[in-house]
């Protein structure tokens, strides 16, 4: 019955929206507890320095101050590195930050002290009076220099190197195959560091109940249970004495799934002070103290045979991990395993070195290496189209996997060691559909010109494909219950940061009872509701949470029908729900509120929930989404500026649970992809100082730059889960940068594969145009 919901393709408006859009959201910043104090962190202005001394007397004497703490002031049990979030066996060593810097700071923004005062204003006044004396150390900034350093400088002196992992994965025999390729192209490609911005910054509020010995933490997090675990470990409290609540969360995008010093320091202080303490990250802090993304430098090569079939691909890349490596090797491994995409690549190898630098830690941010992998693959194909003379579409079509190939074993390993096996897809259908939708053929030939008052813009199109892991374990659990009012309730630990998980859960839980989703009550983002789960990240919730909800709801329906069958002495097979009421054929047997009343009378339970079913779900393997995007660009050849007026995308996320939510996810990520391609760039100087540390200089795509979107679906149901669904939150971003740079090359009649860096700056466009106009045999484009 639930399956029929996902097959119905009926759109529901998000149940979250009315409250959020009318200003009734409740974020950590909206919560005020009695006697609540506020904290501000004193942060390092240096990328790399030894702390000589910290004087706090003036700060302590500042009005309204409750206390000031440095590393030395912390209790011995708390003076240790944060538990690493993800480990990987390929690491030589794992360096995790301490709650406050111990002796050395390793990036601008690292917290060295914390000031607690009666309010934020007083805390900031006092923070300015904490005097920290630093002895600057040579900063490690440039990625290549950092990797090559043998005599220092090192981010962590004891490692004797900045390289913390050297990882290789290979399928086939790449070197042998490359040697016999008919055509080979080599590219050096660079994707630059970016931020992971949410509308709401990070935020933590903690309250300690001395009588009960219970700690309650409200946190703007993507994972309440992992945070509960870490708090338990660091604060030496049993898990059941810690409750972590994610209230409304204003965006996550990955960085909020990570663990940060502030999330531990604030609860530590709340317990110490016996009063609630809150910290709200401001935008300036986001840029220097939240996890960041990307920074990869690839040396990549592609070989094809005479017919254009790929014989081998290899890439050797550096990945800038930042100052510590507590978040595992997810980003570079995801980049490496995403690179092959929907293409048949019999021989492929990726090798990378994870390199520490004096910059904030790098973690998964929407895409998590996928756009980088796709960029490398698609750039190689473009450069090959240029060299071999094979049309860029034809070269791709020749190499697409066919529907018969699935399940398809790529021959690589996930970051967890499990194999990369595509569950289902139909790449040629996606490809053909997007080519048709975008009127690709009409866009060919001489790039179109649009002349207006002294300005000529040129139009071009670009295409790129991807396959992405979108639904991977470990398990999520869900409880579905009938309460005393006869309402169906869904209880989840996984929270929502804009993905519409409450809507999805309501939709799936309503189906077995034939209720309207608005009649189902969803509670989520609370460690007290369910004890199994990792949270919301990696495009996993449709698969993990969706199936858990659906199984638990069906379980509850069966429990209820069993009771009604007994009471009315009818065979259970004859019973069914219609609009929340139970019928046996035409005979009405009762409603959910009536049943609740009966159950309450029977006194089976004294609690608020009369009947409940809990289910866990973990997919068999990994669900892989796929898609192909076409970007249409308008380039001003005199200024080098690029606009993206239209994006077409055909996507396969299996069955679509709620078309409106899926559409929202995809267009949001497409806009994000436009930003990645053209704007988002964290620029550091050679001292490791961030030059783009505010929204004035770090450019995020706005509505004015967002394209018109045309999105279609061709779903191949995933065999990994009963609902046949796959994730969708990162799909839109994967192909966009690759498609956009290719479209600019088309617009300006540049050699395919010209652009090798992201983001694409107007000056780079002009330089490429100038270089092209110096080539013989090319017509002037500007």
């Amino acid at each position, binding site marked *: 019955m639930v399956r029929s919901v996902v097959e119905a393709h009926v759109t529901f408006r998000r149940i979250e929206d009315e409250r959020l859009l009318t200003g009734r959201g409740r974020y950590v910043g909206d919560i005020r507890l009695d006697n609540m104090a506020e904290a501000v962190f004193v942060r390092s202005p240096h990328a790399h320095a030894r702390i000589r001394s910290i004087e706090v007397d003036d700060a302590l004497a500042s009005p309204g101050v409750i206390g000031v703490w440095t590393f030395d002031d912390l209790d011995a049990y708390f003076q240790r590195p944060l538990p690493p979030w993800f480990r990987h066996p390929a690491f030589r060593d794992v360096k995790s930050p301490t709650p406050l810097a111990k002796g050395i700071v390793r990036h601008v923004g690292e917290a060295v002290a914390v000031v607690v005062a009666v309010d934020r204003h007083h805390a900031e006044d006092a923070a300015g009076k904490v005097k920290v004396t630093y002895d600057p150390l040579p900063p490690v900034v440039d990625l290549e220099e950092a990797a090559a350093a043998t005599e220092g400088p090192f981010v962590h002196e004891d490692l004797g190197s900045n390289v913390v992992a050297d990882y290789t994965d290979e399928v086939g025999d790449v070197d042998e195959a490359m040697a016999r390729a008919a055509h080979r192209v080599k590219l050096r490609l660079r994707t630059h560091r970016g931020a992971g911005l949410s509308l709401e910054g990070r935020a933590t509020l903690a309250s300690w109940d001395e009588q009960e010995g219970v700690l309650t933490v409200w946190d703007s997090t993507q994972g309440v249970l992992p945070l509960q675990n870490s708090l338990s470990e660091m604060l030496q409290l049993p898990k059941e004495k810690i409750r972590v609540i994610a209230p409304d969360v204003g965006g996550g995008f990955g960085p909020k799934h990570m663990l940060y010093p502030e999330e531990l320091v604030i609860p530590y202080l709340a317990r110490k002070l016996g009063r609630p303490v809150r910290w709200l990250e*401001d935008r300036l802090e986001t840029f220097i103290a939240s996890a960041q993304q990307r920074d990869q430098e690839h040396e990549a090569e592609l070989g094809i045979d005479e017919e254009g079939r790929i014989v081998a691909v290899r890439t050797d890349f550096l990945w800038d991990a930042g100052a510590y490596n507590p978040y595992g090797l997810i980003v570079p491994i995801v980049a490496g395993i995403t690179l092959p995409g929907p293409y048949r690549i019999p021989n492929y190898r990726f090798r990378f070195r994870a390199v520490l630098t004096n910059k904030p830690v790098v973690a998964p941010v929407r895409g998590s290496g996928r756009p980088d992998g796709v960029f490398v693959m698609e750039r190689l194909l473009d450069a090959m189209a240029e060299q071999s003379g094979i049309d860029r579409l034809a070269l791709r079509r020749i190499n697409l996997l066919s529907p018969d190939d699935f399940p398809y074993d790529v021959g690589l390993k996930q970051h967890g060691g499990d194999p990369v096996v595509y569950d289902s897809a139909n790449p040629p259908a996606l490809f053909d559909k997007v080519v048709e939708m975008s009127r690709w053929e009409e866009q060919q030939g001489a790039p179109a010109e649009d002349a207006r*008052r002294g300005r000529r813009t040129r139009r071009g199109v670009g295409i790129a494909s991807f396959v992405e892991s979108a639904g991977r374990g470990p398990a999520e659990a869900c409880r579905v219950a009938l309460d005393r009012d006869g309402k169906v309730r869904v209880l989840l630990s996984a929270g929502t940061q804009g993905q519409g998980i409450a809507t999805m859960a309501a939709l799936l839980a309503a189906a077995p009872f034939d209720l309207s989703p608005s009649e189902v009550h969803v509670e989520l983002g609370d460690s007290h509701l369910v004890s199994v789960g990792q949270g919301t990240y990696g495009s996993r919730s449709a698969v993990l949470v969706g199936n858990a909800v659906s199984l638990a709801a069906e379980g509850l329906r069966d429990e209820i029908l069993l009771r009604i069958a007994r009471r009315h002495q009818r065979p259970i097979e004859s019973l069914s729900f219609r609009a929340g009421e139970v019928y046996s054929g035409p005979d009405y047997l009762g409603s959910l509120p009536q049943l609740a009343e009966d159950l309450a009378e029977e006194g089976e339970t004294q609690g608020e929930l009369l009947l409940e079913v809990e289910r866990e779900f973990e997919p068999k393997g990994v669900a892989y989404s796929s898609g192909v995007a076409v970007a249409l660009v308008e380039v001003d050849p005199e*200024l*080098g500026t690029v606009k993206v007026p239209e994006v077409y995308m055909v996507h396969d996320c299996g069955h679509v649970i709620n078309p409106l939510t899926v559409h929202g996810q995809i267009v949001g990520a497409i806009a994000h992809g436009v930003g990645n391609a053209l704007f988002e760039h964290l620029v550091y100087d050679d001292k490791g100082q961030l030059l783009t540390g505010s929204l004035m200089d770090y450019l995020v795509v706005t509505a004015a730059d967002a394209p018109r979107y045309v999105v279609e679906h061709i779903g191949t149901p995933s065999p990994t889960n009963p609902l046949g669904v796959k994730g969708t939150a990162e799909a839109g971003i994967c192909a966009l940068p690759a498609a956009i740079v290719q479209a600019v090359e088309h617009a300006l009649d540049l050699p395919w594969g010209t652009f090798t860096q992201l983001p694409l700056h*107007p000056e780079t466009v002009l330089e490429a145009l100038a270089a092209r106009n110096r080539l013989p045999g090319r017509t002037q484009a500007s």
Partner: protein
Amino acid sequence: MKPAPFRYVAAQSLEEALALLQEYGDEGKLLAGGQSLLPLLNMRLTQPAVLIDINPIRELSYIRRENGVLRVGALTRQRELERHEDVLRDWPCLAAGVEHIGYFQIRNRGTVGGSLAHADPSAELAVLAAAYEAEFYVQSEEETRVIPAEEFFLTYLTTSMMPHEMLTEIRFPAQPSHWSFQELARRPGDFALVSTAVLFDLDSRGNACNVRIAVGGVDATPVRLRNAEASLEGRPLDEEALEEAARLAQDEVEPESDVQASAAYRKRVVGVLVRRALIEALSRPQAAGRMEE
């Protein structure tokens, strides 16, 4: 991001505001629309002892036409200027340029005087004031003086006003018949990498006269491109003239590099925008009326 402590005083009249400025001098800072000041306060980049709020002084908010001159009260909101009927008809370049300031929410709060007194060299109003050869009426308790646009902006965020003086009115003379405002920013609403306001008349033989080309974002103040202007004066604006003006414009500026654009790119953009502005201005019918009152 909370401001350092300050004293707040709301001035109810111009006299009171001037008296407060006299009293506090360097320590005092005027609060008008707050669109630049509040971020600076919140980031603690400026920490004035006293904030003198002039928003209650209604008498400083007006747009008046007088003898062919547009008189704009310093507290007039940018959005009012942008949408004012007289401005749209007879000072259309002013309206077009103001439209590029940030977003409409910013223009709803931001004031004309506030932006000019802030003296950001990439601010649209500063460029427009330079092109129009606007006059700045500046008052203190002792006197009122008039500062020509050319002398008003000294360098980044610095004007020739004294700490106890206040900008009360800006006067824009009649606009030449042909005009264009061009701007390039990384995204719509961002600070301009380069902006330019171009104004000129055509004489009876179709030659350019009264040519003014002002550019922002390329120096510590908005600049007039005198060489480019002179090259066009008394000449028909044919293709050759446009090319020459664009080249001179580009050579005349000495921008600096920053994280968004190199000096070389900005120079190139100046040439492209000046050329486009001249073409656009020429392509317009005699839109701006010659104001004969």
